[in-house]
């Protein structure tokens, strides 16, 4: 063979199947762009959308005829009605439940992550805005006592669900009324302000009835029209209140159908899933159901994840370092190569234990061990594959303070293996070590891995102080012994 680097250029010679005609590529690109813009216009993404003209909400009825575009003076009816807040009726015995029970199955009915559907991402930020937010001004996020959100990408669309708990039912009812008021008030014409020139589209909101569930509920479909033609991307929203809790679900998709009856049929599945979750929200009702109910694990459920699946003795035995000690520093994250927080793995029960070796007050080694439990349990294997994918594609910039860097080779190869309980993957990378010194050649040799067990997922990272002038040192890697030990403990307990 000639010089292989010259040979590289010969790869240009072999051609595969001819590409699509460029007109088809542009057509597909236009379709993708329309879908993106439609979801933005329907209030799903943080889009730059400016309201340019006032107008009443134009409503239709999925059970009836398609509404026709009308002037701004068209009567807004029927639709989700503004509900007067309750008079602050009696609170349940023992007071309102103001925490979402651990393991609440908010993701029930979502497709399992696979080749088409993406992973389910959790959002625990209590200030996250409502997805049903046509005017983009929902101040009551400040009043939430607890919150849980999930999102999932599916082909040409998404699922998003949000559950917020308030201090009483009156506040929750005001939130529901606020949705109705906002839908009535927000104009139905929006300008999609794009660089190079925006355009105006009509936003249609069609009332789809209620869910026959909870204290109050409604469903709507929002879609766009351009030049009088209904666009196929649409978002189905459902909102339901049970006691002091409010659930909002959004399902965006290319429905492909323009007739109300066809859309209604396509939405039966999502509506049923939301109604099932609403049934489980009975724990928040004035007359609450007992916990646990189906799909809700009480916090003390036996499947709570175990803590400290690795202990100081195991770390000493495997690493040879004597001075391991448990530490409590919640600033430490998870594995360094994680593209996202471990919440993206959709585990809904997590335990994290942290250890360090300190010499004269300086950190010389660290260990982080995370155990994740899953509801539904079928997401566990998807979580493993996602975490293993993080390791496989670990990139240069990990976070603001730790860059993967080395004068030599910063990456070790990705290893895979098996414990007695399931598959494992691990990899070593070298990163900067600002904890040791800011302007020196100190670096971390990070040995990180993930192990799947029949009930749980375990992530382990052990980092030793090293020298940035060298290459990542795998000779001292405690993997896979630590992964096997952690997997065993996570399976036994």
């Amino acid at each position: 063979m000639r010089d292989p680097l010259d040979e590289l250029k010969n790869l240009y010679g072999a051609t595969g199947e001819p590409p699509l005609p460029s007109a088809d590529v542009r057509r597909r690109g236009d379709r993708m762009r329309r879908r993106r813009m439609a979801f933005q216009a329907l209030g799903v993404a943080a889009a730059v959308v400016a309201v340019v003209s006032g107008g009443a909400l134009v409503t239709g009825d999925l059970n009836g005829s398609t509404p026709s575009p009308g002037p701004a003076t068209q009567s807004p009816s029927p639709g989700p009605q503004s509900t007067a807040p309750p008079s602050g009726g009696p609170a349940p015995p023992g007071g309102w439940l103001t925490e979402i029970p651990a393991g609440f199955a908010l993701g029930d009915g979502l497709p399992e992550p696979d080749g088409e559907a993406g992973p389910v991402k959790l959002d625990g930020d209590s200030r996250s805005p409502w997805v049903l937010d046509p005017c983009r001004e929902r101040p009551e996020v400040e009043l939430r006592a607890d919150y849980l959100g999930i999102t999932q990408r599916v082909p040409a669309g998404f699922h998003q669900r949000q559950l917020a708990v308030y201090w009483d039912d009156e506040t929750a009812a005001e939130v529901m009324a606020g949705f109705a008021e906002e839908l009535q008030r927000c104009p139905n014409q929006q300008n999609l302000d794009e660089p190079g020139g925006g355009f105006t589209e009509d936003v249609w909101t069609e009332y789809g009835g209620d869910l026959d569930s909870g204290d109050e509920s409604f469903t709507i479909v929002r879609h766009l029209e351009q030049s009088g033609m209904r666009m196929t991307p649409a978002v189905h929203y459902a909102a339901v209140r049970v006691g002091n809790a409010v659930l909002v679900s959004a399902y965006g998709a290319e429905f492909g159908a323009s007739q109300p009856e066809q859309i209604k049929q396509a939405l039966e599945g999502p509506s049923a899933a939301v109604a099932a979750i609403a049934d489980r929200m009975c724990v928040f009702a004035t007359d609450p159901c007992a916990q646990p109910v189906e799909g809700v694990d009480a916090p003390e459920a036996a499947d709570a994840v175990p803590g400290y699946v690795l202990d100081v003795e195991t770390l000493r035995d495997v690493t040879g370092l004597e001075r391991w000690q448990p530490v409590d520093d919640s600033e430490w994250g998870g594995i360094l190569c994680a593209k996202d927080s471990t919440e993206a793995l959709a585990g809904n029960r997590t335990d994290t234990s942290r250890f360090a070796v300190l010499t004269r007050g300086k950190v010389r080694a660290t260990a982080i061990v995370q155990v994740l439990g899953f509801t539904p349990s079928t997401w566990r294997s998807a979580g493993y594959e996602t975490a293993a994918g993080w390791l496989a594609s670990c990139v240069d910039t990990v976070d603001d303070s730790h860059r993967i860097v080395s004068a030599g080779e910063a990456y070790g190869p990705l290893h895979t293996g098996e414990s007695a309980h399931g598959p494992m993957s691990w990899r070593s990378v070298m990163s900067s070590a600002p904890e040791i010194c800011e302007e020196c050649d100190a670096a971390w040799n990070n040995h990180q891995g993930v192990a799947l067990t029949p009930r749980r997922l375990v992530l382990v990272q052990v980092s030793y102080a090293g020298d940035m002038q060298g290459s990542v040192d795998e000779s001292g890697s405690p993997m896979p012994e630590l992964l096997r030990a952690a997997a065993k403990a996570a399976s036994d307990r």
Partner: protein
Amino acid sequence: MDAEEFDDFYTASFDRLVAQVYAMVGDRDEAQECVQEAFVRAWSHRRQLAQARAPEAWVRTTAYRLAVSRWRRTVLSRRSPDRALQHRSHGVDPGPDHVALVAALAQLPEPQRRAIVLHHMCDLPVSAVAAEMGAPEGTIKARLSRGRAALLSLLDEGPSGLTEGASHA
């Protein structure tokens, strides 16, 4: 970028980009599908593309990320992770040197492989490779040096050692 400019760009660069992504991921069909999809996205984001200093690099990076993402989804759906080395192209049958080279590339750690393709196949200077990969120039030089040595060593071993242990991104 208007339609005519896009069509010219697409026609002129498609085959070149497929070959480059092929060298990075080791599967020509996968590379072609990802480049195709990257062009769809490029047109969908055409204003952003028009503002990019190097549209071809934008498409290449998008296609490469799609390939990595597709590989992850492949793993998720539990198809064979060694698809990267399975030949199912409908195009011209490559010669043995070609197969050995792609197989050797696939054995390199992903950062080395990508750096070698960008520098030696795309003819990008080290500074441009560093910019495209988001890494310091010194790191790129180290990757190039180690990657070249590893590639030569793998090819010296002959094809027998090149069918297992492929790493794909």
